[in-house]
């Protein structure tokens, strides 16, 4: 391509005027020589005036520090006064901008005319990229937290069930042997009382273990886990739950089973807590290579967007858990009619 300086400078001017990147030119002493419209747009008015007036280090008014290896926002070893400008070909900086507060930018700062000491400073807004990254990070963290929580629950639950409860059972059996060793009725009555206490304690421990994570979920799958969970709810809260399942004891990925169990647990507990119903229906089925769970109550219901009666974290948590396995939760509710929660996860 033949050199065409006119054309090139026209392109450069267009880029300077229309680029979404903010471009500043500074002289050797840090006075502003020029800045493009994108740069003028992000600066607060008083800072902009100073920049245009060419005041010393006017950019410092807006600068909130750059990110170094040791700190998120620092002025130590400032790029503006650095003796090694080569280090600042790409770095992150925080600027106080017009209307948006302190925003992270990716910046380059280098000399384009070493004779006259003219340096160019270019900024690209990082907000969107940062949000994407943050979201990604959050999702990964959430996945790890949930996984760690489930694993730890599984461990404690097994420990309680296999070790603590077993030893306690041995103690109960040993107490039973007492009646062959003495005829003293007082001793036997006391032993009977102790046996009752231990048996209830054993029950408490089994309940604890179940609440943490039911062994049946890992050993026998969703249906078995749901059945024993619903039975316990009926026993402790007097609310009956009708389970209709057509998955025929099929087993799924452990992560998916956990998501289904926890979301169903949350949805049912919500119905118990807020809907004041006597009956809840739960429907579990596979269709179009998706696994579905629907819980229905005909209770008080709520209006979407109304301030939640609880923490409001329950529904959020359900969605978060579903997202982990690429599933989605749809919640529909009508005042006085009841609430339906529909979870579907691709298999």
């Amino acid at each position, binding site marked *: 391509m033949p050199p065409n300086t006119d054309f090139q400078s026209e392109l450069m001017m267009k880029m300077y005027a229309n680029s979404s990147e903010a471009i500043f030119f500074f002289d050797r002493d840090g006075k502003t020589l020029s800045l493009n419209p994108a740069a003028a747009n992000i600066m607060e008015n008083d800072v902009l005036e100073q920049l245009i007036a060419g005041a010393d280090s006017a950019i410092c008014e807006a600068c909130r520090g750059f990110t170094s290896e040791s700190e998120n926002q620092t002025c130590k070893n400032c790029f503006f006064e650095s003796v090694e400008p080569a280090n600042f070909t790409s770095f992150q900086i925080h600027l106080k901008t017009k209307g948006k507060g302190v925003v992270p930018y990716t910046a380059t700062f280098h000399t384009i005319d070493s004779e006259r000491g003219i340096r160019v400073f270019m900024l690209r807004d990082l907000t969107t990229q940062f949000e994407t990254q943050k979201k990604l990070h959050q999702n990964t963290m959430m996945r790890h937290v949930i996984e760690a929580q489930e694993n730890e629950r599984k461990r404690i639950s097994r420990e309680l069930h296999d070790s603590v409860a077993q030893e306690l059972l041995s103690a109960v059996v040993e107490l039973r042997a007492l009646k062959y060793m003495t005829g003293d009725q007082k001793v036997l009555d006391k032993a009977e009382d102790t*046996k009752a206490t231990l048996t209830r304690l054993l029950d408490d421990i089994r309940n604890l273990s179940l609440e943490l994570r039911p062994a049946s979920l890992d050993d026998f799958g969703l249906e078995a886990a749901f059945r024993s969970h619903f039975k316990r709810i009926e026993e402790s809260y007097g609310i009956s739950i009708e389970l209709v399942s057509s998955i025929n004891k099929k087993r799924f990925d452990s992560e998916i089973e956990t998501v289904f169990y926890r979301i169903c647990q949350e949805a049912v507990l919500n119905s118990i807590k807020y809907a004041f119903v006597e009956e809840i229906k739960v429907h579990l089925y596979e269709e179009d290579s998706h696994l579905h769970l629907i819980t229905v109550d005909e209770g008080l219901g709520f209006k979407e967007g109304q301030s939640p009666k609880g923490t409001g974290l329950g529904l959020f948590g359900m969605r978060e858990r579903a997202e982990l396995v690429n599933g989605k939760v749809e919640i529909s509710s009508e005042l006085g009619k009841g609430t339906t929660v529909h979870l579907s996860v691709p298999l």
Partner: protein
Amino acid sequence: MKNIADHQTQIDQFRVETDFDLVAIALIEPAENQYVLKWKYASGNISTRIKKILLQSGKGIAGMVFKTGKPLIVKDRGDFAQNDDLFNFPILVFENLRSFGAVPLWHNGRVAGVLLGGYREEGLMTEEKMVLLTQKASSGIGNLDGKDLILH
């Protein structure tokens, strides 16, 4: 020893004397039922739903009184449990109790059950009513001797 069937007659009578809306007794089930705690007798109840519930030690009203052996008085349900916490106390929901008292039933130096007296209106439960409950509990109901201390 008094007859076990006596329980129902005794609490029916007690309810008439004391003017409670509901009087209920929670007792330990025998060994073949794993010694679970249940509301076995009720007088003035709306439904029989509460009798079906397995009470867990340390949870719910009966569970709390049973485990601690201490009486419990609630003059206004709102101070005791918020709406989203109410499901932990099914007897309050099913029987719509607004104020109540509950005392341990002693037998042989151990807590053997719980006696509850309640109202479907706030503020009706008073210290005087609590005294009536405590007296009733210590006088022995059914085959319970009501003694919290055994002197040999």
